[in-house]
């Protein structure tokens, strides 16, 4: 079946972020409004002209509520896209689809989260004496101490190590590359804290084989982007980041529920990101070799490692050979998570990755890849994920 996707017809015209912290001291609605206003100002757009808002289904800020906070005249389109981390690239895609269909002209896409001072995902999903039901299948996992994302990804990492000889050193190279990028990014929470491979190995085990520095930073903050047509974006304040390709994929053998049931996949060390990559690159008429810079969803180091294999930057099980000193840094084969990523900038649930992917196209990253023309961003892959390929106008 031929894709009807039309590359380069839609664009990201504005980007905005709040500060990233452990305690924002303000509501998710206030954070969302600040990020959205920053993105609209960046694009040179009047907030009252926003007619669409797209969010993920884990956000506590309703689209109409954010529209009200922005003082929009009439919000005529909104949508929820899937679970948290898997959503951001797909949120941009849904906004683009709405503009293409004529349902909206100026769409704010946002994620707002008090992930450290409010609801901490690292605190686990167990609430109350009985777990599960309602098609979550959590009754098959939570009673067995499988209660947090980190514990799930630890299971995956262990199996990857057993099957492929992956070592903690490879995971450590992902962590230290992200940290090095954060050290050059004043907005990153780990801006002032360096990390060597020895520091990585010295960090305490949380769920073996994963340790503290394999885990992302629970964060308070918000990010937003403005999606509009490429034609209109060309007349706005910033150089547009054109959407060369956009894709969502659940892949085969996705399993019901969310995250933990992915332990029932035939292979627990490959995800929907494999099928996602095929669709993404086909729609864009590109291959992984065309990518100049990548923002790879990194709730954990292993999450990024497996995506590199699934997306085709190296073969299955070959990440340990692909990721050498410097591979993922500016000047390396695949500069990755150039703002510091979830591991060292902050965890805005995939949305700060979209913002950084746009900066790379504009040439304004604090770790700018010289001459970057093709910018990849992915959103969480475990039980269905999404991705974008962005290019300059």
């Amino acid at each position, binding site marked *: 079946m031929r894709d009807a996707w039309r590359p380069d017809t839609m664009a990201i015209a504005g980007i905005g972020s709040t500060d990233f912290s452990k305690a924002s001291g303000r509501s998710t609605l206030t954070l969302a409004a600040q990020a959205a206003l920053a993105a609209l100002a960046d694009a040179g757009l009047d907030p009252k002209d926003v007619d669409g808002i797209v969010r993920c289904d884990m956000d506590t800020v309703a689209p109409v509520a954010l529209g009200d906070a922005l003082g929009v005249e009439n919000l005529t389109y909104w949508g929820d896209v899937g679970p948290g981390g898997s959503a951001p690239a797909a949120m941009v895609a849904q906004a683009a689809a709405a503009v293409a269909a004529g349902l909206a002209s100026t769409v704010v896409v946002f994620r707002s989260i008090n992930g450290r001072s409010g609801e901490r995902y*690292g*605190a*686990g999903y*167990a609430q109350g*004496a*009985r*777990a*599960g*039901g*309602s*098609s979550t*299948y959590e*009754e*098959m*996992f*939570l*009673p*067995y*101490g*499988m*209660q*947090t994302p*980190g*514990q799930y990804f*630890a*299971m*995956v990492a*262990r*199996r990857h190590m*057993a099957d492929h000889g992956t070592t903690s050193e490879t995971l450590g190279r992902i962590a230290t590359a992200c940290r090095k990028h954060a050290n050059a990014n004043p907005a990153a929470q780990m801006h002032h804290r360096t990390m060597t491979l020895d520091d990585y190995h010295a960090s*305490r*085990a*949380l*769920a*073996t*084989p*994963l340790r503290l520095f394999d885990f992302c930073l629970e964060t308070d903050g918000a990010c937003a982007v403005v999606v509009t047509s490429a034609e209109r974006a060309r007349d706005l304040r910033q150089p547009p980041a054109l959407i060369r390709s956009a894709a969502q994929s659940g892949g085969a053998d996705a*399993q*019901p*529920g969310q995250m933990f*049931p992915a*332990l*029932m996949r*035939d292979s*627990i060390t490959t995800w929907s990101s494999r099928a996602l990559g095929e669709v993404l690159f086909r729609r864009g008429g590109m291959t992984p070799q065309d990518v100049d810079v990548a923002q790879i969803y990194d709730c954990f180091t292993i999450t990024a490692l497996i995506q590199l294999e699934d997306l085709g930057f190296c073969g299955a099980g070959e990440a340990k050979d692909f990721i050498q000193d410097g591979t993922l840094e500016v000047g390396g084969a695949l500069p990755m998570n150039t703002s510091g990523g979830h591991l060292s900038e902050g965890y805005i649930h995939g949305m700060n990755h979209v913002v950084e992917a746009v900066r790379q196209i504009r040439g304004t990253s604090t770790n700018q890849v010289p001459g970057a023309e093709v910018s990849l961003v992915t959103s969480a892959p475990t039980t269905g994920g999404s991705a974008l390929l962005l290019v300059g106008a």
Partner: protein
Amino acid sequence: MTEQRVLPLTTDHDTAPFWAAAAEERLVVQHCDDCDLPIHLPRGVCPRCHGERTSWREVRGAGRLHSWTVVEHQVHPGHPTPYTSVLVELEDLPSVRFLGSLPGRLDLEIDQPMTVRFERVGDTTLPQWEPVSS
């Protein structure tokens, strides 16, 4: 007083028969009556042939260790660390996997033989998995 550990909801439409069998110390897996597929995780419609007639068959409680993690960072008061969560696949049906948890830090190897054991907690019975003692 120690905090209550997390117990499963045993009344879900799709998984209740699994827990009912566990209460009788039987390990069961849902199968499609029409195409014989083991349906795990269980559900009302077969994902292969779309048949809606299913039955729960007792299976042998012999498995192999697919993966594990030693949890060192405690998040729930009823689950004191360290403990070891194990992911076990059935010897006879490798596509079917179950979780288990054991106190302490276990020294384990991928693919090592595991066996089921039934643990009673109040009025709930949990199938658990432990290494086959050599």
